[in-house]
């Protein structure tokens, strides 16, 4: 029995001893390293470690939460008692409680032992190689950031219904931000890569992508305002899907903060669009055998053939809606109680490569970056207007770069206008954890000059 398993068990016992009718404890240990290089030198190197336990105590339909970092017997007891006390102050919630069905899905490959074979020096070398790869491309004027980062964590969850399980996971990722052009014409580009260990990262591809994205924008102008077909690249499509995933949380729906409320079963997207939440994908950064309250992870289709199939539930929101949990109780860390969240969002790839999407668009806009998504989208009405940059599409081919423009629509109109889905899906660490291909939208309002 590991120290974490022991801490979780003690957390549950401590809360029960203090008078809780039900209890749950989440114990966690995590370490992470981050290397940032600049102009061939280490700019910063950090090494962090944290561990702690968070206890939920239930008393007569009230729930309380407390956490602490002292995993000794006495430390965990104090946390458990504090959780029991916190429950006193809470308003009762008849739907709060532990899951009726507990379980763990078999998810392979969450942790890579290869992470341990890498010394800090090799990780620094990898970050430097990413920077070099970006710098080497002619036209790149600077690499603002080249970062390598990894993390390793273990979790143990126990509750008073007999659940006791744990897992171990690793992550590694790298990114670079490159500049091309000078002065008023300076443009930036981002390249990213991620995997379970540094072996999965290709520094050349990551640095090269940053360079190519910046170089493609050099000489960008403000386009004229128009309504036209728009191709969203995988980064941008992923950002939008992350936003949509958040609005499919039953919590947002029940609070009246989702434009998808009352839309289950409706056509909410073009027939080509299929979106799923999958907490068991072996490649998914947010995959785990069980969710933040001990329900087994699973794949939940959200939109298929353009039709909205379900929202995402944890135990509380499911009981409130008279439904079953979808295993989407998510936990940021031991410092916060579970709440509904996406795991990995997967947008099903289609048949067309990027050139094929351009041909279908004819004359339009290819968007490679958006800014202000979180301020520019109204989560309730879904209307949005966000800053964008990218290239024009002329006669079915990529043409001149553009900037200082906005694209506007509302999310449902945009989803319904999805005419084709690209074939090349990739993992993108923005908007949560999303795997998305590019999307062709039949029409959007583009504001420029």
């Amino acid at each position, binding site marked *: 029995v590991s120290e974490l398993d022991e801490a979780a068990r003690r957390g549950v016992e401590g809360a029960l001893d203090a008078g809780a009718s039900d209890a749950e404890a989440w114990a966690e240990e995590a370490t992470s390293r981050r290397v940032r290089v*600049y102009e061939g*030198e*280490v*700019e*910063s*190197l*950090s*090494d*962090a*470690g*944290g*561990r*702690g336990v968070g206890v939920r105590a239930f008393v007569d339909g009230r729930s309380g939460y407390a956490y602490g*970092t*002292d995993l000794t017997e006495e430390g965990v007891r104090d946390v458990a008692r504090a959780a029991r006390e916190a429950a006193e*102050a809470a308003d009762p919630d008849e739907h709060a409680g532990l899951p009726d069905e507990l379980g763990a899905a078999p998810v392979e490959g969450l942790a890579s032992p290869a992470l341990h074979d890498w010394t*800090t020096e090799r990780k620094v070398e990898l970050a430097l190689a990413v920077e070099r790869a970006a710098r080497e491309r002619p036209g790149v004027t*600077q690499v*603002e950031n080249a970062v390598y980062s990894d993390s390793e964590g273990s979790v143990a969850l126990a509750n008073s219904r007999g659940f006791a399980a744990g897992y171990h996971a690793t992550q590694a990722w790298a990114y670079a931000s490159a*500049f091309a052009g000078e002065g*008023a014409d*300076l*443009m*930036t580009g981002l390249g990213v890569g991620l995997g379970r260990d540094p072996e999965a990262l290709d520094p050349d591809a990551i640095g090269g992508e940053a360079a190519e994205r910046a170089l493609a924008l050099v000489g960008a102008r*403000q386009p004229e*305002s128009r*309504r036209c077909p728009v191709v969203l690249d995988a980064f941008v499509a992923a950002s939008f899907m992350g936003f949509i995933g958040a609005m499919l949380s039953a919590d947002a729906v029940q*609070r*009246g*903060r989702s*434009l998808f409320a009352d839309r289950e079963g409706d056509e909410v997207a073009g027939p080509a669009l299929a979106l799923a939440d999958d907490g068991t994908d072996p490649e998914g950064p947010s995959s785990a055998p069980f969710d933040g309250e001990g329900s087994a992870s699973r794949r939940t289709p959200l939109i298929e053939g353009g039709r909205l199939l379900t929202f995402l539930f944890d135990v509380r929101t499911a009981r409130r809606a008279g439904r079953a949990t979808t295993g989407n109780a998510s936990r940021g860390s031991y410092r916060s109680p579970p709440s509904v969240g996406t795991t990995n969002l997967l947008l099903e790839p289609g048949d067309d490569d990027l050139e094929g999407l351009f041909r279908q668009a004819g004359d339009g806009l290819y968007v490679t970056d958006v*800014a*202000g998504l*979180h*301020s*520019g*989208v*109204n*989560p*309730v*009405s879904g*209307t*949005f*207007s*966000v*800053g964008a*940059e990218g290239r024009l599409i002329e006669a079915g081919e990529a043409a001149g770069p553009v*900037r*200082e*423009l*906005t694209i*506007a*629509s509302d999310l449902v109109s945009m989803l319904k206008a999805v005419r084709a889905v690209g074939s090349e899906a990739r993992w993108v660490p923005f908007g949560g954890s999303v795997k998305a291909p590019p999307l062709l939208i039949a029409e959007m*309002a583009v*504001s*420029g*000059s």
Partner: protein
Amino acid sequence: VRVVQGDSSYYGYVDGHAEEDLLRVAGSAAQALRGDARGPAPVPAAERADGHAVRVRPEEVEAARKADLLRACDEHARGLASEVVQVRIGYGESRRQVEVFNSEGRAAADDRTRIRLSAQVVARRDGRVETGSDTRGGHAGWELIETEPEAVAEKAARRALTLLDAVDAPTGRLPVVVGNGFGGVLLHEAVGHGLEADAVQKRASVYAGRLGDQLADPLVTAYDDGSRPNDWGSDGIDDEGTPTRRTTVIEEGRLVSYLYDVQRARKDGVESTGNGRRESFRHLPIPRMTNTFFAPGDATVDGLIGEIERGLYAVSFGGGQVEPATGDFVFGVSEGYLIEGGKVTAPVRGATLVGNGIEALAAVDGIAADLEIATGYCGKAGQSVAAGVGQPHVRIRELTVGGTAS
């Protein structure tokens, strides 16, 4: 624990205060270095900074009183109109005690209390749903919240209700009057981030190499001031132990200073401006704004609007984003109105301001006298810190408005 050598930083942290963990982290940070060992400098007792007055400690106010205040706000907003369908009132208090020591003999302490009340209201009419929000907060105690808390809920509700009648936003290049208080997020994003010395030294800012240049009309002066009593972004010291202070960044249109932490200041041979901030002990300090705002001018709001034939009055923003390297920015207008014939007319929804910081700054042609500081959270390098944004009403000659009107 941070170890600095030249331009490189080595950093480590642990949760908790266990001595063996702390020593392990210190050892691991120091291991990355090559060079001669240096004897430890004497570390004096930390000297507490002059704090910001907290009259009523929030933790001493009973939870029931806090709950009553939230209920009163909730009821007030619901009572304003039958269209109010959702009200969410949030209250947060935090107290953070900080001590900073360094090998140059710095030993400083600070005791920081922040309090914040927020309201978010959803209004619905005929299938149309709109949201409005407002906040009040400061480096202060319960006294900040207990006076007319309902005003916060009311402002949020009025915004949501106003938007129910909103027309689609216009599109094109228009004169824009930006509201006071949270309107200052435009200065924060479009100018402030570009003045942070880390971006400047990496030439990742459009303001690099522009010190001393006339970037704006002489009527424009702007400050970063972490010492303003009780403001949201204020502290006694920054997170490297440097006392907070007022730094003039733009003086009568001329760029006169960047914002520094200790490491970047050393590189430029200047003093830290007290802008070395971090989210928590889990983060490296970097140059960050405190409270950043335009100094008041002598125009009136009516005067600024009265001269505009057709334009946009952007009262509040949902947020914004800027690419410091290019200065390109985007702001979502959460409350905005058309200006027609010198008068504020219909509310608009879905407006976005798109532009470039250095161009927008040069286009400021009027500043009113009604300075106000609002509460924001600023994100940078994965770290979120409390930042005060503010300004009086400001007029910009022309900006690109990305609307939803076709």
